């Protein structure tokens, strides 16, 4: 497994307040194949914290969070099941 996999799907939740980025992630995680990576683009500080917490609760893998040049983060989640 490589450190940074190319996301199979990017969800643009920039400008959206929590819990909307998490709702979008939950709706769309099954749109990628098993072991596929979803990138959530978000700039609500709550999403930076809540996406990894969602992964822990839902047994998916938080791969990493990378700062975006224009502010916010690309938060990568690997579908586990």
């Amino acid at each position, binding site marked *: 497994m490589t450190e940074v996999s190319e996301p199979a799907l990017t969800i643009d939740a920039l400008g959206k*307040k*929590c*819990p*909307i980025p*998490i*709702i979008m992630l*939950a709706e769309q995680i099954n749109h990628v194949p098993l072991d596929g990576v979803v990138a959530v683009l978000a700039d*609500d*500080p*709550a999403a930076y*914290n*809540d996406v*990894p*917490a*969602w992964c*822990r*609760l839902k047994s998916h893998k938080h791969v990493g969070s990378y700062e975006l040049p224009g502010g916010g983060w690309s938060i990568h989640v690997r579908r586990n099941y």
Partner: protein
Amino acid sequence: MAYFDAASTEPLHPQARDALLTAIDAGWADPARLYGQARRAHLLLEQARAEVAEALGARSDEVSFTPSGTQAVHLGVLGTLHGRRRAGRHLVVGAVEHSSVLHAAELHEREGGTVETVGVNLQGRVDAAAFAEAVARPGAALACLQSANHEVGTLQPVAEAAAACREHGVPLLVDAAQTAGRMPVPEGWSVLTASAHKWGGPAGVGVLAVRKGTRFRSFLPEDERERRRVPGFENVPAIFAAAAALRASLAEAAEEQARLSALVDRVRRRVPELVPDVEVIGDPRERAPHIVTFSCLYVDGEALLTELDKAGFAVSSGSSCTASTLRPSHVLEAMGVLTHGNIRVSLPRGAAEADVDRFLAVLPGLVHRIRQDAGVA
């Protein structure tokens, strides 16, 4: 209306109300003067000081009253750092301390001091080994640790922290705001802070206790009041009422806090059974008796607070949308738990079992409706 926000403020205890009314008539004069009315005010003030000291495990001359718990923390942190500035300028704090501690730490840092923040586990409990390492550093001047967390109720490892502080000669400030009047004050503090309105006293009374032998020097302009630790004319009636509330709360504490703790256990157990996709956070056993916090996935915390308010429940939330700032609670962030859909239930003295059951009965429907509106459920 069921009031479940005791961690913000406890309703005034009836005995505090009586004491307040008495002392407004009898204790209005300047306690520092030498005539009859002044001597009476002085007597009430010193009686309150002796009672509060005894209840908190301090000596009378160690206790000063402040205009708030927040100010007790500010004075305690900055006054101890000022008193120990020759020993060093390194301040150690837990990551989930009350904002008053963290804001005092920020001020210390802006003025050239250093601050080390010790992290917590998923339950919100400070890492005792990391805390001990931090106070062992050269130049450690003060360490701060709360007795219990104000947002999730988790008790902190004060005994371990105190042992490490003692070993390295570093004073420990214990912020007992959430437990004073409910549980015994943990031993080993050098500086102790508390807030009367959290135990059923009136607002406007904080406690700052400084152990004999702890170096302390106020950073504020000189004033002879309160052992030179707190400037300004004491609010004698409120202080007298605060002492009455503490006495009354402690007399009831063993029985009443056990009753509240059983209700908290019920909420902790039932909420995940009744509501899907919910996480109850904080330590299930090592916790303050009155606080339970949970987060509902996919739910806007403010919407849930509003619905609960309409249904007759006063609770609070650490979700970002409910605060004045755009940042979520630093406590939930440090724990790494969900910050959205967060609800804190904190039970005051006398909270009715029937109200707790009614809360459990209405909560699932409200969460379901909010999720449905968001297109989730």
